[in-house]
């Protein structure tokens, strides 16, 4: 915008520059509008509603705007919920650990030993399960682990068992197994992306300098791919915390997670209690993300 000459030299009589029209000032941000609309309309606004609901109460299927802390008090004063939440955390942590342990060797092998021309089809294979629906992927496990499932029949066929094993399905191990299967691609792809950028000559250099292979991996490789590991943990741990369908379909009454109890609240119109417990989980996740945020900073690895 052209200024008057006086203004340009800082005259005391300088004319205040005219501001650009609002539309022009907002133009650079136009690209954000879909995200703002989606995030604001479908995430922030419902979140505010959930916060409000958690401080209200339900009387005869109607939400009444009586401010109260009862919903939170109820959660912490009822051992079942605290126990179920702790169990859910334990399941999420174990699932995350096992998923990463299963995904790491694949990602390592792909990034280090597989020719680039072969990598792409192999990576496609990792995401093949996404071509079918989530529900189908979970349900299919009932035909594998069930009484008359593939696994039981195979074990009977080779003479290992004479009666079907009933504990394979509708228990916590089944939930963990299916969750590992569901979240494996997230972990594998994230770890692969991290390992692919790693300079493998550094491992050789470390070993040339006398480091045994295990030390080279723990002191050179792992610190550098820490952000990738952190993202993989976030991608697995957080969704597993809120899982409802998998425990419902393969967990039975012994594989219940906190999400299943929350659903019961909403099914019975107990929105306010459901909202309070949902918020407690959300708060826990936020704390977790704050903790993880530091782990994403690779510069700190070498004390820069």
């Amino acid at each position, binding site marked *: 915008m052209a200024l008057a000459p006086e203004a340009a030299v800082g005259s005391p009589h300088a004319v205040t520059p005219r501001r650009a029209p609002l539309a022009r000032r907002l133009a650079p941000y136009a690209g954000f509008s879909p995200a703002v609309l989606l995030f604001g309309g479908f995430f922030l606004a419902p979140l505010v509603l959930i916060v409000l609901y958690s401080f209200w109460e339900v009387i005869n299927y109607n939400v009444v705007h009586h401010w109260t802390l009862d919903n939170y008090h109820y959660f912490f004063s009822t051992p079942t*919920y605290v126990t179920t939440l702790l169990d*859910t955390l334990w399941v999420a942590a174990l699932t995350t650990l096992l998923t990463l342990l299963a995904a790491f060797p694949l990602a390592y092998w792909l990034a280090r030993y597989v020719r680039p021309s072969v990598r792409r089809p192999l990576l496609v294979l990792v995401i093949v399960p996404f071509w079918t629906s989530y529900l189908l992927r979970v349900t299919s496990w009932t035909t594998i682990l069930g009484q008359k499932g593939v696994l039981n029949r195979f074990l009977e066929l080779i003479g290992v068992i004479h009666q079907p094993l009933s504990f394979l399905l509708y228990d916590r191990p089944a939930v963990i197994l299916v969750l590992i299967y569901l979240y494996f691609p997230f972990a594998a792809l994230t770890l692969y992306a991290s390992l692919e950028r790693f300079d493998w000559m550094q491992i050789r250099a470390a070993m040339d300098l006398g480091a045994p292979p295990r030390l080279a991996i723990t002191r050179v490789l792992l610190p550098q791919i820490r952000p990738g590991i952190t993202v993989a943990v976030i991608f697995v741990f957080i969704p597993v915390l809120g899982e409802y369908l998998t425990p419902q379909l393969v967990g039975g009454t012994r594989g219940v997670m906190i999400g299943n109890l929350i659903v019961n*609240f909403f099914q019975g119109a107990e929105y306010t209690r459901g909202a309070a417990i949902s918020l407690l989980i959300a708060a826990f996740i936020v704390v977790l993300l704050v903790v993880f945020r530091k782990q994403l900073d690779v510069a700190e690895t070498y004390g820069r």
Partner: protein
Amino acid sequence: MSINGPVTRRQAMRAGALGVTGLYVAACGSSGTTQSTASKTSSAASSSKAPVTLNWETWNDHYLPAQIAAVKQATGIAARPSLESDDSDGYLKVKQTGGQYDIVSTDALWAPKYFHDGLTEPFDIASIPVSSQLYSVAKEVPFWKAGGGYLVYPNGWSSVNIYYNPKYVSPAPTSWEVLTEAKYAGKVVAENQPTDLMAMAGLATGAKEPYGMTTAEISRAQDFLKSAKPAFLKLVSQNSDSVRALADGSAWMALENLGTDFRVKAAGGPVVKEATPKEGVVGWIDGEQMVKASSHKDRFHQFLNGMEQAPWVAKNFLVNGRPLFNEKAYKMLVNQGYKERADLLWYNQPEKALQLTLKGPSGNVQAYIDAFNQVFGA
């Protein structure tokens, strides 16, 4: 449908053909039923073939896909069913979405609640020609009469009994106490309906009003469920899941509707038998309601007149079991050689439906859900 009843192709085609004929007759408005003044709009509507899609909140045993397709062809009315897991689920969805649904299925004492909360509208049942095929008792349910009309177009009824596999469950259960026996740990399935399971536990522990229990009664029911919890393998979302569990042998007992024995057999499963606990059973009578905020109320009568024709109802009985309220369909079943099966499921005794402890909204739902969650939490 995932479950196919023991219906031959010829029988199915005959039922379909009869259904289409019924629909044609209904669509032409040539039924001989006398119509009341209130039915004039529906009569006018029944001649309309303008295409419209009705959103229908219901259960999966209220319709057959072929039936919906045939009604669409005959009347221009398509239906888009979405499944409700239980009555409170359906109630809440209608309450939250206003006129997004046109028809909602419900059970027994839930209908007055819908009406009193301004969610549904009564209608003149006599103005729907196909209602002449109903048992008269179905048109005289006292708590379905309100606002000068009828709240529900009756569909079917059932008690929720114990179905057991006699190969593993012996002696035959006579009481709900069977659920607390250690030898049946992990061998029982039931539908995940917290209020109804609490009501069942209330019956087991002698509650006078299972859907309106006092605090002390809720506590006793909770204790009973706690002692029965080890028996529950899983809580399923639809009754077809219970049928599958009995059929594949993962469950030995199920708390399910009448006709489950036939459905298990049709699914290739073992022989299962029905037992009625001495403490009594919970039951339901269900049907379709007109949503007050619907913008297609003028097509409600025409749609039901197509859907509820006896040939389709008879076919539905063969596929899904449990007694229905269409008397003409019963007579058709008798003529087709299914009298024994229909009578075994009390299809010929609709008055039994009103003698059950019927499903309804709980007076203290929060206490019910709290108690249920405390049992089935980790």
